């Protein structure tokens, strides 16, 4: 069993050396770490395993790629700046309300699709210019959008980590709506005010209003928003009438991207799509690398080492283990953390209310989307705000993330009392 620890050290060491010392791309570093791990584990060069592992993210990759093309189209058509103008004109006198509403808008696609990336890349990109106009620094705007992304992913009606955790113990996804709302909505309001209010309060909004460029809005009007409305409508119909629509996220984003070409300003759709893929490729590469990394961890027994070590702590430290290991494992995948650690932790907490506990565990697992190197939610949030890197965004998310973990752990500790409330 000591050999698994050695393999883990080799994998982490090779990854760190390639990524930080040699400054190679994260995706290449993960590939090298996976190969090194397999060699150290006595598996040779398991090409089949490396390729197979990367296929775990095919659907996610398609969703991200098409969402990026869609958002580039929305931006090029002039819809983003037009929406900023409309929002500021309507709500500039009530910044707190505006911030909360923008946060809920940013959460919405995540609530419908169960994907933080979809949330950040669509509604996140829509609210980003408004947040900047309200006076939020780029890092705070990105952090709020990233947090809205994971809260949207966890808020009902669709919470895929909770479904995965429940599926592991044959618990159907029934009765989760209220505990998930109780978990996420107070955090959404708190995040909006924490990241935004002190900046928005100080901004001279009359001056902002006077400086707005309303050319696109005045020229094209509501037509500009039709692609966004189309995508949101198809997402809702996909869920409301799954037997009729069931298009899937990639096709919905592809249809939305096509619609942007006719909604506002003329632009070259092929150039916009190519730019989108240039932006998306590093993240897509990371996902492929992560897939290989997980496969080799499983192949060599490193996954077992991590899971059993997390479960080995004394009962008193179980909550600490949940708080530390689930977000950390989320660095490779939030859904993976839900499956690999969420299920055993739920089984270790059988004396608690299972629905409330699974809901809270899903929230902690979702924080993995802030964890480098994948950090999908934070990376995309920084991108939609226009930041060069996502390091400062992550720093802004540290304290709120600790508060989210504490909130979720309180739900687990008091799960029976919370269940008795409704």
């Amino acid at each position, binding site marked *: *069993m000591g050999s*698994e620890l050695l393999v883990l050290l080799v994998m982490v060491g090779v990854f760190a050396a390639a990524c930080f010392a040699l400054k190679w791309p994260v995706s290449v570093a993960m590939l090298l770490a996976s190969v090194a791990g397999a060699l150290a*584990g006595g598996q040779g060069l398991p*090409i*089949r*395993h*490396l*390729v*197979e*592992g*990367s*296929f*775990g993210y095919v*659907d996610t990759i398609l969703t991200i790629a098409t969402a990026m093309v869609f958002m580039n189209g929305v931006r090029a058509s002039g819809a983003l700046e037009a929406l900023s103008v409309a929002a500021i004109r309507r709500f500039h006198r009530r910044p707190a309300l505006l911030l909360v509403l923008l946060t809920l808008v940013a959460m919405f696609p995540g609530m419908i*699709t*169960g*994907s933080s990336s979809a949330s950040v890349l669509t509604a996140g990109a829509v609210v980003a210019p408004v947040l900047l106009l309200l006076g939020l620094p780029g890092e705070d705007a990105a952090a709020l959008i990233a947090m809205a992304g994971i809260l949207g992913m966890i808020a009902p009606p*669709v919470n*895929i980590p909770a*479904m*995965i955790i429940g*599926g*592991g*113990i*044959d618990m*159907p*996804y*029934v009765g989760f709506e209220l505990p998930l709302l109780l978990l996420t909505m107070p955090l959404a309001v708190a995040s909006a005010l924490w990241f935004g209010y002190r900046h928005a309060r100080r901004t001279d909004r009359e001056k902002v209003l006077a400086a707005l460029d309303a050319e696109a809005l005045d020229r094209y009007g509501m037509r500009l928003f039709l692609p966004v409305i189309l995508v949101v409508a198809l997402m809702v119909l*996909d*869920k409301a009438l*799954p*037997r009729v629509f*069931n298009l*899937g*996220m*990639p096709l919905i984003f592809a249809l939305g991207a096509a619609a942007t070409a006719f909604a506002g300003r003329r632009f070259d759709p092929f150039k916009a799509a190519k730019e989108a893929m240039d932006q998306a490729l590093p993240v897509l590469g990371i996902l492929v690398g992560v*897939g290989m990394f*997980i*496969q*080799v961890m*499983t*192949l*060599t*027994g490193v*996954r*077992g*080492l991590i*899971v*059993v070590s997390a*479960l*080995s702590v004394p009962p008193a430290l179980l909550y600490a283990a949940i708080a530390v290991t689930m977000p950390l494992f989320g660095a490779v995948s939030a859904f*993976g953390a839900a*499956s*690999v650690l969420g*299920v*055993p932790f739920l*089984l*270790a907490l059988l004396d608690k209310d299972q629905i409330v506990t699974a809901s809270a565990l899903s929230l902690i697992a979702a924080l993995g989307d802030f964890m480098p190197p994948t950090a999908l939610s934070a990376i995309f949030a920084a991108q939609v705000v226009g930041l060069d890197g996502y390091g400062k965004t992550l720093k802004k998310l540290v304290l709120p993330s600790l508060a989210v973990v504490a909130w979720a752990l309180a739900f687990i500790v008091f799960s029976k009392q919370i269940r008795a409330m409704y």
Partner: protein
Amino acid sequence: MKRRYATAILFLALALAAGAVAGASFLSMREPEPIARGPGVSEIRKLSDWFPGLAGGPGDTEVYVLRGEAPGGSMLVLGGTHPNEPAGFLAAVLLVENARVSSGALYVIPRANASAFTHNDPQEAAPQRLHIRTPWGERVFRYGSRATNPLHQWPDPDVYIHASSGQRLSGNETRNLNRGYPGRPDGKLTERVCYGITQLIRKEAVGIAIDLHEASPEYPVNMAVVAHPRAMPVASQVVMGLEMEDIAMRLEPSPVNLRGLTHRELGDHTETLAVLMESPNASQGRLRGRTDEALALTGKDGWYVKAQKLGRLFVPYGEKGHPIEERVGRHLAGIAEFAAAFTREYPDRPLGIEGMPSFEELGEGGLGAFLRRP
């Protein structure tokens, strides 16, 4: 600039080479392993005989029919519902290759989800094949996935909605055969396979249907029979009968609110007595160490031993693991007890099944002693 192009071409060539090697490996999974025709097999049919909508497609699969000379009841045994649970598949193979029926009829579907045998689950690092030594050579069996191959059914919805109940599950469960019953003739491939099996049960008036599974040792329902309410009287006799043979088996009622599973839907939508059996399989568990063929065959795993000491498991787990002979033996002993209990409960529909290796015989001789040359 030239150097960047050269690097790009090199990486592209490496990716293509890796794709070719992996592709050949993936394609090899489409070749089904031969199953020998045992002395009791009367005919080999296809599931599409009961639901023609499956004919020629990846969901169609062999149905081995073993008829007795005397009339009687009928039993359906499903192996390979989840091809990453090898004891269910191998027990069904041993049944086909060894069993003889004196009264009634036995239907065996060793590869219930034939499509799921053609691939492995990404990031689970499963072995592709199990090699079992026999007195005359080696038999090779595929170790597949829990779910239908996405090349045959794709894409998954974000949320899977079970057709007849509206129950919502994670989207990948849409390819799980044991979440799709009773199935739909116009549904997705997995639902159509479920429909084909349901049609077989209806048209052949199958008296008892047994779905063979395995569960990870940390899963609460393990070393257990899960029974539909109408099957409880028979299942309780089975559990007592197994206790007499020193085979510990729990009896669990089929949950009312968990839909799409054999023990619930086949019992609700047909006249059959629907039951499911679970044996402990470390190679599908979340706590397992090194994942390979040896783990699937022996069940020996240091992390599970540690987890047992920590009180995190629902089955006993020692250094000896739970070898495949023990897990297959549990299933076959259960099937024998079900045939006997069914006959006691419905004496006008006797089920006489002989020739199956016993739990002790499998433990002593190993699986290979009972596998025939195809």
